[in-house]
């Protein structure tokens, strides 16, 4: 069994699925077979890590034929964005392969001229989930179960079981054709059982109600009512083209019988698709005997960046045996001289600077050095530690044997990585350099700053300024699904002493249309839904606050912040986090007393103040899965809890989802019934192929309401503390020597 399956098998409900799953690839998931028939000595014949081409997608953004699904799964972690259009129906889909056997989709769709439920064009949102029951093996086809639009208003609600079998052209005796044939057949309920039904389970299926609150799981509908068989095939004559045909059992009752969006004359759809590039696939179709359709599919895999990251090569460590050849070179007399110690500090700072690191402080004894450094460049803490270790090996006198490397963020020591200089010298060119060093290094709690630390001469007080563009989106207004404000942020910060920081940002909007959005109709205090009111002002003070971060004790981290935290709230905030360096668990508490800011976002406040706070538990589950549970009081005064699950890839790419349940009733909450959403982070280094710690983060909620909302306080502790701890360092150990 592959490890991921073992992990999954621990969950009892999944045990059945695991029994059904076949043996995994013997090579491990990342290695794919070399091309058939390539000559030895060519690159095609060599081992490769490039993933195999993923399956093509249907109009719902999941693997499939045209309007019907197939059983195929995307490669693990794959991320697919599709846009499809036919007969006045447009669908924007995002599909994420969360586990090798489980995928989830989010859809935003518009149906033109539906003329129902009081909307001109009917916009809706929906979620799908698909689980593979077993893999293809021998003559057994792969089988997948899917729930389409399974929560909420359910305009596309359907459930299905589908089986797919793949055949190589050559195996079918079609001569030397390299082509491939995929056959799919399934049984569908809901929409997929609305035409050509062959049977019925449980009588009449409760129907779709447009314009209702939505958000609840439609369990009373699943696999109820008529069911019908559907099917189709995909023929790929070569790597780029494919021909598709299917028999669809979606009668499009709402579009063609209740309303008159298009005419459905046939159940058979045809299409042709072309793989334009590794990531983009385009298709054209003829659907339901009357309509032309298009589909554009973009697929990305976090494990497969557009450009592999290239970091300027480090200078090799020169063993001391080569340059400290006399006994006098190893003398420790320099420790007595403050001037000499300062010289070594300056030399180390200079060497670190060449690698983009900033020396905060250094503590030197005859045989040890504790370096506190900032890392504004590398996402991987292990890589920053590797560069810091090399810098010390280059700058310090030979008698210093132990390096204690302490990454520092906002004055807060995050952890200690202790390495011996002789290990660095011995292992750099070892066959297993990364594993060997990781085994020889120790990770410990950072502890207090030593009294005799020599601070950098350049920091404290330190000023920083930046001018950078910003964008601020607003989603899913029925009148206009996407709005955007853009402009410039003028930011400045001042750090008077380690841990202390005063920062502010002035925001100037240059263009945007968020101000034309929907007015709030919320019956709760308008803690988040007055976005339009806040967007009326072009020049605003985005934030202005003073904060202090410190370590109150072993394994403890603390933060205190006062001022204007974000565009909507200001106040005071305190946080305490317990996170041992070697543990996968963390616990935290946060309390905030906040006042709602005036719409003009200057120094004034509105008449709404509240105490909001949470207790949080964090766990690293392995395989990059991060779980967080928060319980406490939210901005509208509601009590409840938030559950979030993120999958963070080794390179910082993040995909996650969350939901919040509070004591606000679904009627009071409004559309969506409870707060939920998903988030992404695309790292800049992943995009550009060069080191960076920045990323483009995005949190999308199907509806922004007032229940279950939290204040956004700058510099929350957990994320940056976790990055420097053992699990993260171990997972990224391969970066240490690079």
């Amino acid at each position: 069994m592959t490890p991921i399956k073992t992990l999954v098998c621990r969950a009892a409900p999944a045990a059945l699925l695991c029994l059904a799953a076949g043996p995994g690839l013997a090579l491990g998931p990342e290695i794919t077979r070399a091309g058939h028939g390539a000559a030895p000595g060519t690159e095609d014949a060599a081992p490769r890590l490039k993933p195999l081409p993923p399956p093509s997608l249907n109009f719902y953004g999941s693997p499939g034929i045209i309007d019907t699904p197939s059983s195929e799964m995307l490669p693990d972690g794959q991320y697919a964005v599709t846009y499809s259009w036919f007969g006045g129906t447009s669908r924007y889909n995002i599909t994420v392969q969360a586990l090798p056997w489980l995928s989830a989709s989010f859809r935003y769709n518009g149906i033109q001229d539906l003329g129902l439920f009081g909307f001109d064009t009917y916009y809706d949102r929906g979620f799908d989930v698909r689980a593979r029951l077993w893999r293809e093996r021998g003559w057994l086809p792969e089988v997948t179960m899917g729930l389409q639009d399974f929560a909420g208003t359910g305009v596309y609600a359907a459930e299905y079981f589908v089986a797919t079998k793949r055949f190589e052209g050559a195996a079918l005796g079609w001569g030397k054709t390299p082509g491939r044939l995929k056959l799919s057949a399934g049984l569908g309920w809901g929409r997929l059982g609305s035409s050509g039904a062959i049977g019925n389970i449980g009588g009449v299926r409760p129907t779709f109600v447009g314009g209702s609150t939505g958000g609840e799981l439609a369990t009373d509908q699943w696999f109820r009512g008529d069911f019908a068989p559907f099917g189709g095939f995909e023929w790929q004559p070569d790597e780029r083209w494919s021909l598709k045909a299917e028999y669809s059992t979606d009668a499009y009752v709402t579009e063609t019988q209740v309303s008159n969006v298009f005419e459905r004359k046939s159940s058979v759809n045809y299409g042709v698709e072309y793989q334009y590039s590794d990531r983009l696939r385009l298709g054209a179709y003829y659907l339901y005997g009357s309509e032309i359709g298009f589909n554009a599919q973009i697929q990305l895999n976090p494990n497969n960046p557009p450009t592999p990251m290239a970091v300027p090569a480090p200078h090799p460590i020169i063993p001391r045996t080569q340059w400290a050849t006399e006994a006098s070179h190893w003398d420790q007399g320099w420790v007595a001289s403050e001037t000499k110690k300062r010289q070594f500090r300056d030399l180390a700072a200079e060497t670190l600077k060449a690698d983009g690191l900033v020396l905060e402080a250094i503590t030197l004894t005859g045989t040890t050095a504790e370096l506190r450094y900032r890392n504004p460049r590398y996402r991987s803490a292990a890589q920053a530690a590797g560069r810091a270790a090399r810098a010390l090996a280059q700058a310090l006198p030979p008698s210093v044997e132990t390096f204690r490397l302490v990454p520092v963020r906002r004055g807060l020591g995050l952890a200690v990585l202790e390495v011996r200089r002789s290990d660095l010298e011995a292992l750099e060119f070892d066959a297993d350099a990364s594993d060997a060093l990781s085994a020889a290094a120790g990770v410990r709690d950072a502890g207090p700053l030593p009294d005799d630390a020599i601070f950098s001469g350049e920091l404290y007080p330190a000023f920083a300024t930046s001018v950078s563009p910003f964008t601020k989106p607003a989603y899913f207004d029925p009148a206009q699904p996407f709005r955007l404000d853009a402009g410039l942020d003028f930011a400045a910060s001042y750090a008077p002493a380690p841990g202390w920081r005063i920062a502010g940002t002035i925001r100037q909007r240059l263009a945007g249309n968020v101000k034309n959005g929907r007015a709030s109709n919320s019956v709760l205090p308008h803690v988040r839904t007055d976005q339009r009111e806040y967007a009326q002002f072009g020049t605003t003070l985005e934030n202005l606050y003073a904060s202090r971060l410190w370590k109150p004790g072993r394994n403890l981290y603390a933060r205190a912040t006062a001022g204007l935290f974000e565009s909507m709230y200001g106040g005071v905030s305190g946080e305490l986090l317990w996170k041992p360096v070697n543990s996968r668990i963390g616990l935290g508490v946060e309390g905030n007393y906040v006042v709602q800011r005036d719409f003009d976002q200057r120094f004034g406040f509105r008449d709404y103040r509240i105490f909001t706070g949470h207790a949080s538990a964090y766990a690293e589950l392995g395989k990059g899965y991060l779980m967080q549970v928060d319980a406490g009081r939210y901005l509208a005064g509601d009590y409840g809890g938030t559950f979030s699950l993120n999958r963070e890839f080794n390179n910082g790419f993040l995909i996650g989802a969350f939901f919040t349940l509070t004591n606000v009733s679904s009627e009071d909450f409004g559309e969506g019934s409870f707060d939920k959403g998903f988030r992404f982070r695309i790292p800049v280094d992943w995009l550009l192929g060069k080191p960076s710690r920045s990323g483009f983060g995005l949190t999308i909620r199907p509806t922004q309401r007032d229940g279950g909302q939290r204040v956004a306080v700058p510099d929350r502790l957990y994320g940056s503390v976790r990055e420097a701890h053992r699990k993260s360092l171990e997972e990224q150990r391969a970066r240490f020597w690079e």
Partner: protein
Amino acid sequence: MSMIRKTAALAGLALVLGACAKGPEKTPAELEVLKAVGEQFTRRRNMPPPVQLTRALLDKQSQAYIEVTIENRDAKAYLTRALTRRDSSPGTIEVWRTQDNVSLALRSGMVIATRGLGGGLLSAQVPAADGAAGPARGGARRYTVRAKGNGQARLSMACSLQDLGSEPVEIVEVTHPARHLQERCEGAGGVVVNDYWIDSRPGRNQVWQSRQWAGPETGYVRIRQLRL
């Protein structure tokens, strides 16, 4: 329409003129992307002209040089020696480096690491022996390569070594007497063939020329010893 266009142009201009960052803090993401796009343009303009290699030119140099060609991107570079050392494993290690911060580490003339190339070879176990250049025997070989973002993958292969006999090599107007050794490795779902041209004079442990596999991303590299 023209109003919108004007606003957009103005906004674009403001971004390019206005974007900057100073001080010991992280640069905002938007800024880094803008900078990277800008660098793409300047790099295209500042491509240096290719060098015409002659022995006379090489003789004028004071340092040792190797020429490395990466086949899959048709890139060629001249590297100088940054370090020669030994560790607890057999074979002498040499680190070679370009001016634009790409480096290549060799053990007895066999590639054991690349740095600065993107998706590189992190480390490798090679069949080196003291007193021999190139591979000393067949058997196990192990490559550790960058995979999955910041992770690594280990490719284990089994090799056979074949001596293809005397085959002198000419490197920029000088012909060196050499033996051609070929290493054929199988495993990790593929086949790799490495070729070495090793000085055939007794006591001279020198790989003059080679073609070696350096991981899935870099592919095959050709190395020539231009100047000792």
